[in-house]
């Protein structure tokens, strides 16, 4: 059921918010032994929130579109009073003291928060296997990963344990799991949604965004959480003027670099067939080039790890989180961090610290920042010619659990089609457009910064012609 349908059903008293919440909690109870999407479920507070909505309906008060809609939140986003682990031992018992801005905005609308979802530790990974607590399985094939890092959120939506979920995307962490699990996922323009209350991974890239069943739902959630926030200096209210976008009046760019070697045949065929359908519906299709995209992955893993190494310096065993006893202050740092962080997080802190260290800074971090400028310019130039860019989200569908876990570089390469967009700060939506056997395949719809509205319009047109 979509958010609008739920709203109508609540108004018609076809079911109550409590009944809907109980239904989700039952689904969670039934599915979780197989899927493992949730790290924590808060039955009581969810039912209390539902009762508040039901009381309003009973009294004939107006309710908002999202009132009584049950959702799940990635466990890197703070929900006051609930545990927020970031999938890490170092925050295993950490209780969030306040709400993230995105959460405060959702709560104001009366959403029901069912619980917190699994992720790769500190949102570092591509499969959710790097969670310190559990693996999450893909609802379409339990032997495969749900993608990552918002794998718990994507799996929870796909398994119908919730109506929508929030995730976060640094290099593909909403789009890739959305693609693997066959749901809609939006990485908003950098700055569109406040990062306040999101546990920081790489601050020049991180964005909170929705994972939903339909594009319409995605737009409803995005419109609720977006906007300038005094707690995040990089957030803005920028919004493109509303233009009615139809497939008949748009130019769609197809970057040849995203259809090269490494793209699986079935994925290619599915994406090419949707491009043909868009063309048939009247869109002008143009081959374009984003020539520096081949350097994006190397650039991304230098920029993001450098920022992460600085961001994760705050986990020092002093203020909160795991704290090891030791004989002196330096030992507290070394032992708390050595014990509390998992292998992928340590690897990235090491890589980032190396890239920023004296003697290597110019060759690695500074070089990557210059390449980032060139990648961004590629996109700026492309959007002078076209309105949207279509690419696959991932070169392949969901892979097997364990397949890439022992080879970090191989795991990194699964982000190759999503990281360039993150570096450019542009918005991108993953739309489920087909299946390779039983495995979902997502189309990535990219547009110029702050044109989420246009992406939603095109996405909804495409949903109708699939």
């Amino acid at each position, binding site marked *: 059921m979509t958010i609008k349908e739920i709203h109508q059903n609540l108004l018609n008293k076809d079911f109550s918010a409590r009944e809907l919440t109980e239904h989700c909690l039952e689904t969670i109870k039934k599915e979780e032994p197989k899927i493992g999407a949730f790290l924590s479920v808060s039955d009581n507070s969810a039912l209390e929130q539902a009762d508040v909505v039901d009381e309003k309906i009973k009294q004939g008060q107006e309710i908002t579109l999202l009132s009584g809609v049950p959702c799940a939140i990635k466990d890197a986003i703070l929900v006051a*009073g609930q545990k927020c682990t970031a999938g890490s031992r170092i925050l295993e018992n950490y209780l969030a003291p306040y709400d993230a801005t995105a959460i405060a905005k959702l709560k104001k609308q009366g959403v029901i928060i069912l619980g917190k979802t699994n992720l790769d530790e500190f949102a570092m990974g591509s499969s959710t296997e790097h969670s310190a607590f559990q693996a999450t399985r893909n609802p379409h094939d339990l032997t495969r990963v749900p993608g990552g890092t918002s794998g718990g959120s994507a799996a929870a939506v796909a398994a119908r344990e919730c109506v929508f979920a929030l995730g976060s995307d640094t290099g593909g962490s909403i789009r890739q799991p959305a693609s693997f699990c066959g749901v809609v996922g939006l990485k908003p323009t950098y700055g569109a949604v406040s990062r306040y209350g999101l546990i920081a991974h790489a601050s020049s890239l991180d964005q909170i965004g929705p994972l939903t069943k339909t594009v319409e739902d995605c737009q409803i959630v995005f419109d609720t959480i977006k906007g300038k926030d005094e707690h995040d200096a990089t957030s803005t209210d920028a919004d493109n003027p509303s233009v009615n976008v139809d497939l008949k009046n748009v130019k769609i760019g197809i970057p040849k670099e995203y259809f090269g070697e490494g793209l699986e045949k079935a994925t290619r065929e599915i994406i090419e067939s949707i491009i043909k359908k868009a063309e048939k519906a009247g869109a002008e299709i143009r081959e374009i080039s984003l020539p520096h995209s081949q350097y994006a992955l190397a650039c991304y893993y230098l920029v993001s790890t450098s920022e992460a190494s600085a961001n994760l310096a705050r986990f020092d065993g*002093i203020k909160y989180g795991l704290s090891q006893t030791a004989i002196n*202050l330096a030992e507290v740092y070394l032992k708390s961090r050595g014990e509390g962080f998992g292998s992928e997080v340590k690897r990235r802190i*090491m890589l980032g610290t190396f890239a920023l260290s004296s003697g290597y800074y110019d060759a690695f971090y500074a070089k990557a920042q210059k390449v*980032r400028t*060139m990648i961004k310019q590629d996109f700026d130039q492309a959007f002078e010619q076209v309105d949207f860019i279509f690419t696959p989200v991932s070169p392949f569908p969901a892979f097997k659990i364990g397949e890439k876990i022992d080879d970090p570089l191989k795991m990194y390469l699964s982000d190759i089609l999503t990281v360039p967009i993150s570096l*450019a700060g542009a918005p991108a939506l993953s739309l489920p457009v087909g299946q390779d056997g039983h495995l979902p395949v997502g189309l990535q719809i990219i547009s110029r910064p702050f044109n989420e509205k246009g992406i939603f319009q095109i996405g909804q047109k495409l949903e109708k012609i699939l």
Partner: protein
Amino acid sequence: MIDKKLVEKVAHLARLELSDNEKIKMQRELSAILDYMALLNEVDVSNVAPFYANGDLFNITRVDQASSLDEQARQKIIEQFPRQDGAYLKVKEIF
């Protein structure tokens, strides 16, 4: 390129305690990752400015003044100090 000494130096800068096994693994994995990063050597960046920020974000400032925190949030933060003395955070001596 990455030897054990460099791994130890970087680990110290990052304040990470690594076991001997972790050091050996880290040396191998970082070497493989940095070999891949060498791809960037192909790009001529001689006239390119480093990336600064997306959009027109520039020097966003706010008034430098203390703001008060909701009492409940304050209590939750204090309760989670690993070591405390009343409402104070207690740390090990530095020297």
